[in-house]
């Protein structure tokens, strides 16, 4: 009797726990913008068909854009993706789990621009390229997957939100403390792992600027070139002494 009761209690508890899990509902994205030559292949389509405005794309759908062609995909009011020209992408997963929208996009080649604003639904977006995965939440940026390199480049247009970028071949890790935005603020919530062809950039800073980020404090320095490489060049007994511009005499007549 006691055994039966405990079994019943356990079963009821399991039932309650099960009911607390968010229910998975399939979701559809809407093609809100189509420019140029854009084709889609939905799970029910035998072959690729021309994309049209207000077309619904569900899990398993693929989209391909030609030269000078773009497509805008609206997932919810606050989650939008622009598929750039010469891109092929597949919606691997698209579902609503309780208050969260799960989106898994597989980028075969090309680039997409992700724009996630604050809204009623939380979003959990993952963009997979052949050798890397980028998870995005609450931000705006571009993910590019060159066809040849197999890697991925990410450009952020905002400092808010969290982007996590993992590459399969890792040589160097870039963390939040390595980079700052244009206003000198350290970026938080950044965990990036990058190798030679996987690269994260902020506000258009190029790779050299990013790698020299540790010298960012030198910006207001009167002698900004006082960095180890140049010091070595100047202090080496064998190296010719380079006269710095700041110490050059002014030409006569200069006020």
């Amino acid at each position, binding site marked *: 009797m006691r055994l039966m009761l405990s079994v019943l209690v356990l079963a009821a508890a399991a039932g309650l726990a099960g009911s607390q899990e968010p229910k998975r509902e399939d979701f559809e994205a809407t093609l809100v913008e189509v420019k140029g*030559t854009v084709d889609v292949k939905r799970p029910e389509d035998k072959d690729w068909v021309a994309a049209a405005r207000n077309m619904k794309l569900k899990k398993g759908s693929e989209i391909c854009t*030609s*030269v000078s062609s773009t497509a805008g995909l609206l997932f919810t009011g606050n989650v939008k993706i622009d598929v750039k020209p*010469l891109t092929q992408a597949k919606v691997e997963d698209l579902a609503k789990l309780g208050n969260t929208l799960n989106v898994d996009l597989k980028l075969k080649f090309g680039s997409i621009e992700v724009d996630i604003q604050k809204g009623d639904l939380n979003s959990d977006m993952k963009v997979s390229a052949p050798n890397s995965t980028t998870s995005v939440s609450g931000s705006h940026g571009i993910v590019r997957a060159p*066809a*040849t390199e197999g890697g991925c480049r990410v450009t952020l247009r905002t400092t808010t939100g969290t982007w996590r970028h993992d590459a399969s071949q890792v040589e160097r890790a870039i963390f939040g403390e390595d980079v700052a935005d244009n206003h000198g603020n350290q970026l938080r919530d950044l965990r990036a792992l990058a190798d030679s062809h996987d690269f994260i950039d902020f506000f258009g800073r*190029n*790779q050299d600027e990013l790698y020299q980020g540790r010298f960012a404090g030198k910006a207001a320095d009167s002698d900004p070139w006082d960095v180890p490489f140049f010091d070595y060049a100047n202090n080496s007994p064998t190296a010719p002494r380079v006269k710095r511009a700041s110490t050059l005499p002014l030409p006569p007549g200069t006020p």
Partner: protein
Amino acid sequence: MLAAALIAVPVVAQQEKPAEKPKESRTAYLRRIFEKDRASYGDACRAVLSVLKNEHSDADFAAISGDLAGRGVVRADWGLQETSLLTKGTLAYMVFQALELKGGVTMRLFGINRRYALRECVQRRLMASGTVDEYVTGRELIDVITNAAIHKEQGHTDSQYK
């Protein structure tokens, strides 16, 4: 005997008729190029003309190559066929001409050739480095066309490397 001959004639006629190549349309060529180990001259012509016109072109090879020759993007004396394998030098020449790039002193003095066009395209980060006679893979062609389209729009390819 007569009945057998009557049946056989249409069968022979059907066999002799060359199989028509299905016309490839819209974005199908991109997906096909992506899977190819070696891109062809025909692929490059279609892609470069699409970049030039800012729209996808479904025309056949003869019309496309004629259009490109008229614009000076390809040279008739190359004697390349649609299925000829594409080399980096040829692709660089086409991209260089299509984007109306200006070369250095040597090119201005002696005219454009594939070797200098490749150097110029590499320097402008339109193409990855390589040799003039190296074959182009399908994926490389897609990247070059993507870069060329960006260059045409923005005047450089910097945004592709950020």
